[in-house]
Protein backbone atom coordinates (compact mmCIF):
# COMPACT_ATOMS: atom_id res chain seq x y z
CA UNK A 1 0.00 0.00 0.00
CA UNK A 2 1.03 3.55 -0.67
CA UNK A 3 2.36 5.37 2.43
CA UNK A 4 0.06 8.37 1.92
CA UNK A 5 -2.97 6.08 1.57
CA UNK A 6 -2.01 4.33 4.81
CA UNK A 7 -1.76 7.75 6.48
CA UNK A 8 -5.28 8.69 5.46
CA UNK A 9 -6.65 5.37 6.72
CA UNK A 10 -4.75 5.78 9.99
CA UNK A 11 -6.08 9.28 10.54
CA UNK A 12 -9.60 8.01 9.87
CA UNK A 13 -9.12 5.15 12.33
CA UNK A 14 -7.93 7.62 14.98
CA UNK A 15 -11.40 9.18 14.99
CA UNK A 16 -12.91 5.95 16.35
CA UNK A 17 -12.06 7.39 19.76
CA UNK A 18 -15.01 9.75 19.26
CA UNK A 19 -17.41 6.86 19.92
CA UNK A 20 -16.27 6.62 23.52
CA UNK A 21 -16.26 10.39 23.95
CA UNK A 22 -19.81 10.61 22.61
CA UNK A 23 -20.95 8.09 25.19
CA UNK A 24 -19.07 10.01 27.88
CA UNK A 25 -20.46 13.46 27.11
CA UNK A 26 -23.98 12.07 26.71
CA UNK A 27 -23.61 10.32 30.03
CA UNK A 28 -22.47 13.50 31.82
CA UNK A 29 -25.33 15.68 30.58
CA UNK A 30 -27.89 12.86 30.79
CA UNK A 31 -27.02 12.24 34.43
CA UNK A 32 -27.11 15.96 35.10
CA UNK A 33 -30.57 16.38 33.59
CA UNK A 34 -32.04 13.36 35.38
CA UNK A 35 -30.45 14.51 38.63
CA UNK A 36 -31.69 18.06 38.10
CA UNK A 37 -35.26 16.84 37.55
CA UNK A 38 -35.19 14.91 40.81
CA UNK A 39 -33.77 17.77 42.82
CA UNK A 40 -33.94 21.07 40.89
CA UNK A 41 -32.66 23.09 43.85
CA UNK A 42 -29.30 21.33 43.87
CA UNK A 43 -28.81 21.69 40.11
CA UNK A 44 -27.03 25.09 39.98
CA UNK A 45 -24.47 23.94 42.55
CA UNK A 46 -23.28 20.97 40.51
CA UNK A 47 -23.30 22.76 37.15
CA UNK A 48 -19.66 23.78 37.58
CA UNK A 49 -18.74 20.12 38.04
CA UNK A 50 -20.77 19.25 34.93
CA UNK A 51 -18.78 21.72 32.85
CA UNK A 52 -15.53 20.43 34.32
CA UNK A 53 -16.51 16.86 33.47
CA UNK A 54 -17.54 17.95 29.99
CA UNK A 55 -14.21 19.67 29.40
CA UNK A 56 -12.24 16.69 30.72
CA UNK A 57 -14.18 14.28 28.48
CA UNK A 58 -13.92 16.55 25.48
CA UNK A 59 -10.16 16.64 25.97
CA UNK A 60 -10.06 12.91 25.20
CA UNK A 61 -11.65 13.64 21.82
CA UNK A 62 -9.00 16.27 21.22
CA UNK A 63 -6.23 13.81 22.06
CA UNK A 64 -7.59 11.72 19.19
CA UNK A 65 -7.58 14.81 17.00
CA UNK A 66 -3.96 15.51 17.90
CA UNK A 67 -3.05 11.92 16.99
CA UNK A 68 -4.88 12.27 13.66
CA UNK A 69 -3.01 15.53 12.95
CA UNK A 70 0.30 13.92 13.90
CA UNK A 71 -0.35 11.02 11.52
CA UNK A 72 -1.31 13.38 8.70
CA UNK A 73 1.23 16.18 9.06
CA UNK A 74 4.20 15.05 11.17
CA UNK A 75 5.20 11.71 9.67
Amino acid at each position, binding site marked *: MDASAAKLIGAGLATIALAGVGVGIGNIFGSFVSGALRNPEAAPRVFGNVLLGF*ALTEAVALFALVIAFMILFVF
Partner: protein
Amino acid sequence: MHSPMEQFEIKRLLDFKIGGLDASFTNSSLWMIIAVILATGVFVVGMRQRALVPGRLQSVAELGYEFIANMVRDNVGDQGKKYFPFILTLFIFILFANMLGMVPYSFTPTSHIVVTFAMALFVFVGVTIIGLARHGMHFFSLFVPKGVPWALLILLVPIEIISYFIRPFSLSIRLFANMLAGHTMLKVFGGFVVMLGIVGGWAPLAFIVVFTGLELLIAFLQAYVFAILTCLYLNDAIHLHH
Protein backbone atom coordinates in the same frame (compact mmCIF):
# COMPACT_ATOMS: atom_id res chain seq x y z
CA MET B 1 -8.18 29.20 -1.12
CA HIS B 2 -6.00 29.41 2.00
CA SER B 3 -5.40 26.34 4.09
CA PRO B 4 -7.31 26.28 7.41
CA MET B 5 -4.01 25.78 9.23
CA GLU B 6 -2.54 29.01 7.88
CA GLN B 7 -3.94 31.07 10.75
CA PHE B 8 -1.57 29.30 13.16
CA GLU B 9 1.55 30.28 11.26
CA ILE B 10 4.12 32.14 13.35
CA LYS B 11 5.61 35.16 11.62
CA ARG B 12 8.70 37.03 12.79
CA LEU B 13 8.00 40.72 13.23
CA LEU B 14 11.40 41.77 14.64
CA ASP B 15 14.47 39.60 14.41
CA PHE B 16 16.47 39.01 17.59
CA LYS B 17 19.28 36.57 18.28
CA ILE B 18 20.55 35.92 21.79
CA GLY B 19 23.61 33.71 21.41
CA GLY B 20 22.43 30.81 19.28
CA LEU B 21 18.84 31.21 20.42
CA ASP B 22 16.18 32.64 18.15
CA ALA B 23 14.37 35.14 20.39
CA SER B 24 12.53 36.99 17.63
CA PHE B 25 9.48 39.10 18.40
CA THR B 26 6.71 37.16 16.63
CA ASN B 27 3.00 37.70 16.11
CA SER B 28 2.51 35.24 18.99
CA SER B 29 4.49 37.50 21.36
CA LEU B 30 2.60 40.53 20.06
CA TRP B 31 -0.80 39.03 20.90
CA MET B 32 0.42 37.84 24.29
CA ILE B 33 1.52 41.39 25.07
CA ILE B 34 -1.84 42.74 23.88
CA ALA B 35 -3.59 40.26 26.18
CA VAL B 36 -1.45 41.32 29.15
CA ILE B 37 -2.00 45.04 28.45
CA LEU B 38 -5.78 44.61 28.08
CA ALA B 39 -6.05 42.47 31.23
CA THR B 40 -3.99 44.98 33.23
CA GLY B 41 -6.09 47.79 31.76
CA VAL B 42 -9.38 46.21 32.85
CA PHE B 43 -8.15 45.77 36.41
CA VAL B 44 -6.29 49.08 36.80
CA VAL B 45 -8.84 51.32 35.07
CA GLY B 46 -11.78 49.36 36.51
CA MET B 47 -10.59 49.67 40.10
CA ARG B 48 -9.43 53.28 39.85
CA GLN B 49 -12.66 54.76 41.24
CA ARG B 50 -13.06 52.21 44.06
CA ALA B 51 -16.76 53.09 44.16
CA LEU B 52 -18.97 51.52 46.81
CA VAL B 53 -21.57 50.91 44.10
CA PRO B 54 -19.40 49.56 41.27
CA GLY B 55 -19.71 50.79 37.70
CA ARG B 56 -19.66 48.51 34.69
CA LEU B 57 -15.91 47.97 34.36
CA GLN B 58 -15.42 47.73 38.12
CA SER B 59 -18.10 45.03 38.23
CA VAL B 60 -16.21 43.02 35.64
CA ALA B 61 -12.97 43.29 37.60
CA GLU B 62 -14.69 42.41 40.88
CA LEU B 63 -16.58 39.52 39.29
CA GLY B 64 -13.35 37.98 37.95
CA TYR B 65 -11.62 38.45 41.30
CA GLU B 66 -14.49 36.95 43.31
CA PHE B 67 -14.87 34.04 40.89
CA ILE B 68 -11.26 32.93 41.28
CA ALA B 69 -11.16 33.76 45.00
CA ASN B 70 -14.15 31.46 45.56
CA MET B 71 -12.57 28.76 43.40
CA VAL B 72 -9.33 28.84 45.40
CA ARG B 73 -11.19 28.91 48.73
CA ASP B 74 -13.46 25.98 47.80
CA ASN B 75 -10.75 23.79 46.31
CA VAL B 76 -7.60 24.52 48.27
CA GLY B 77 -8.85 26.04 51.52
CA ASP B 78 -7.26 28.76 53.60
CA GLN B 79 -3.72 27.65 52.89
CA GLY B 80 -4.32 28.35 49.22
CA LYS B 81 -4.62 32.12 49.80
CA LYS B 82 -0.89 32.57 49.18
CA TYR B 83 -1.22 31.15 45.67
CA PHE B 84 -4.34 33.11 44.74
CA PRO B 85 -2.48 35.87 42.79
CA PHE B 86 -0.78 33.24 40.64
CA ILE B 87 -4.02 31.44 39.80
CA LEU B 88 -5.85 34.71 39.06
CA THR B 89 -3.02 35.76 36.72
CA LEU B 90 -3.03 32.39 34.99
CA PHE B 91 -6.82 32.44 34.52
CA ILE B 92 -7.03 36.04 33.28
CA PHE B 93 -4.10 35.61 30.89
CA ILE B 94 -5.50 32.43 29.32
CA LEU B 95 -8.99 33.94 29.18
CA PHE B 96 -7.78 37.07 27.38
CA ALA B 97 -5.52 35.12 25.02
CA ASN B 98 -8.42 32.78 24.12
CA MET B 99 -10.94 35.58 23.74
CA LEU B 100 -8.64 37.75 21.62
CA GLY B 101 -8.16 34.74 19.37
CA MET B 102 -11.87 34.94 18.51
CA VAL B 103 -11.34 38.34 16.84
CA PRO B 104 -11.03 37.78 13.05
CA TYR B 105 -7.48 38.11 11.68
CA SER B 106 -6.00 37.88 15.15
CA PHE B 107 -3.67 35.21 16.45
CA THR B 108 -4.29 32.80 19.34
CA PRO B 109 -1.09 32.30 21.38
CA THR B 110 -2.74 29.45 23.31
CA SER B 111 -3.20 27.46 20.09
CA HIS B 112 0.51 26.59 20.24
CA ILE B 113 1.69 23.77 22.43
CA VAL B 114 4.95 25.57 23.28
CA VAL B 115 3.00 28.29 25.09
CA THR B 116 0.57 26.01 26.91
CA PHE B 117 3.22 23.43 27.76
CA ALA B 118 5.45 26.12 29.27
CA MET B 119 2.57 27.18 31.54
CA ALA B 120 1.62 23.60 32.42
CA LEU B 121 5.23 22.66 33.18
CA PHE B 122 5.57 25.73 35.39
CA VAL B 123 2.46 24.67 37.32
CA PHE B 124 3.67 21.06 37.59
CA VAL B 125 7.20 21.91 38.79
CA GLY B 126 5.89 24.59 41.15
CA VAL B 127 3.31 22.28 42.70
CA THR B 128 5.87 19.49 43.14
CA ILE B 129 8.31 21.88 44.85
CA ILE B 130 5.55 23.21 47.14
CA GLY B 131 4.62 19.64 48.09
CA LEU B 132 8.22 18.60 48.73
CA ALA B 133 8.99 21.73 50.74
CA ARG B 134 5.87 21.31 52.86
CA HIS B 135 5.94 17.57 53.53
CA GLY B 136 9.51 16.46 52.75
CA MET B 137 9.76 12.74 52.11
CA HIS B 138 6.19 12.29 53.32
CA PHE B 139 5.09 13.87 50.02
CA PHE B 140 5.63 10.52 48.28
CA SER B 141 2.68 9.05 50.18
CA LEU B 142 0.67 10.84 47.47
CA PHE B 143 1.47 7.88 45.24
CA VAL B 144 0.20 5.29 47.74
CA PRO B 145 -3.62 5.20 47.92
CA LYS B 146 -4.98 4.60 51.41
CA GLY B 147 -6.97 1.51 52.43
CA VAL B 148 -5.86 -0.63 49.51
CA PRO B 149 -4.75 -4.26 49.98
CA TRP B 150 -1.01 -4.81 49.80
CA ALA B 151 -1.14 -6.96 46.65
CA LEU B 152 -3.02 -4.30 44.69
CA LEU B 153 -0.46 -1.62 45.58
CA ILE B 154 2.09 -3.23 43.24
CA LEU B 155 -0.28 -2.39 40.42
CA LEU B 156 -1.65 0.93 41.73
CA VAL B 157 1.56 2.73 42.68
CA PRO B 158 3.03 2.73 39.14
CA ILE B 159 -0.36 3.88 37.79
CA GLU B 160 -0.44 6.74 40.30
CA ILE B 161 3.12 7.74 39.44
CA ILE B 162 2.41 7.69 35.70
CA SER B 163 -0.79 9.66 36.11
CA TYR B 164 1.13 12.21 38.18
CA PHE B 165 3.80 12.70 35.54
CA ILE B 166 1.30 12.85 32.69
CA ARG B 167 -0.37 15.91 34.25
CA PRO B 168 1.63 18.63 32.45
CA PHE B 169 0.96 16.90 29.12
CA SER B 170 -2.77 16.49 29.61
CA LEU B 171 -3.08 20.03 31.00
CA SER B 172 -1.29 21.61 28.03
CA ILE B 173 -2.70 19.39 25.26
CA ARG B 174 -6.26 20.03 26.49
CA LEU B 175 -5.94 23.79 26.11
CA PHE B 176 -3.95 23.78 22.88
CA ALA B 177 -6.06 21.13 21.13
CA ASN B 178 -9.31 22.87 22.06
CA MET B 179 -8.11 26.13 20.57
CA LEU B 180 -6.63 24.44 17.49
CA ALA B 181 -9.71 22.32 16.79
CA GLY B 182 -12.19 25.15 17.29
CA HIS B 183 -10.38 27.64 15.07
CA THR B 184 -9.71 25.06 12.36
CA MET B 185 -13.39 24.09 12.33
CA LEU B 186 -14.48 27.74 12.00
CA LYS B 187 -12.09 28.20 9.08
CA VAL B 188 -13.19 24.98 7.34
CA PHE B 189 -16.85 26.03 7.51
CA GLY B 190 -15.85 29.52 6.38
CA GLY B 191 -14.39 27.81 3.32
CA PHE B 192 -17.71 26.01 2.75
CA VAL B 193 -19.53 29.37 2.70
CA VAL B 194 -17.24 30.64 -0.06
CA MET B 195 -17.43 27.37 -2.03
CA LEU B 196 -21.26 27.12 -1.96
CA GLY B 197 -21.60 30.81 -2.77
CA ILE B 198 -24.77 32.86 -2.55
CA VAL B 199 -27.02 29.87 -3.29
CA GLY B 200 -26.16 27.34 -0.58
CA GLY B 201 -23.73 29.27 1.60
CA TRP B 202 -26.39 30.25 4.14
CA ALA B 203 -26.45 26.86 5.88
CA PRO B 204 -22.74 26.83 6.82
CA LEU B 205 -22.97 30.54 7.67
CA ALA B 206 -25.74 29.82 10.20
CA PHE B 207 -23.61 27.02 11.61
CA ILE B 208 -20.66 29.39 11.99
CA VAL B 209 -22.80 31.88 13.93
CA VAL B 210 -23.91 29.16 16.35
CA PHE B 211 -20.45 27.67 16.57
CA THR B 212 -18.85 31.05 17.32
CA GLY B 213 -21.09 31.26 20.38
CA LEU B 214 -20.02 27.78 21.45
CA GLU B 215 -16.41 28.69 20.78
CA LEU B 216 -16.69 31.73 23.09
CA LEU B 217 -18.04 29.40 25.78
CA ILE B 218 -15.13 27.02 25.20
CA ALA B 219 -12.62 29.90 25.37
CA PHE B 220 -13.93 30.70 28.85
CA LEU B 221 -14.34 27.05 29.85
CA GLN B 222 -10.77 26.11 29.01
CA ALA B 223 -9.38 29.01 31.05
CA TYR B 224 -11.65 27.86 33.90
CA VAL B 225 -10.55 24.23 33.56
CA PHE B 226 -6.87 25.19 33.50
CA ALA B 227 -7.30 27.28 36.66
CA ILE B 228 -9.41 24.71 38.51
CA LEU B 229 -7.03 21.85 37.69
CA THR B 230 -4.15 23.98 38.97
CA CYS B 231 -6.18 24.41 42.18
CA LEU B 232 -6.77 20.65 42.44
CA TYR B 233 -3.07 19.86 41.91
CA LEU B 234 -2.18 22.47 44.51
CA ASN B 235 -4.69 20.92 46.90
CA ASP B 236 -3.09 17.49 46.36
CA ALA B 237 0.35 18.89 47.12
CA ILE B 238 -0.74 20.86 50.21
CA HIS B 239 -3.11 18.37 51.84
CA LEU B 240 -1.88 15.09 50.28
CA HIS B 241 -4.87 12.71 50.42
CA HIS B 242 -7.84 13.86 52.47
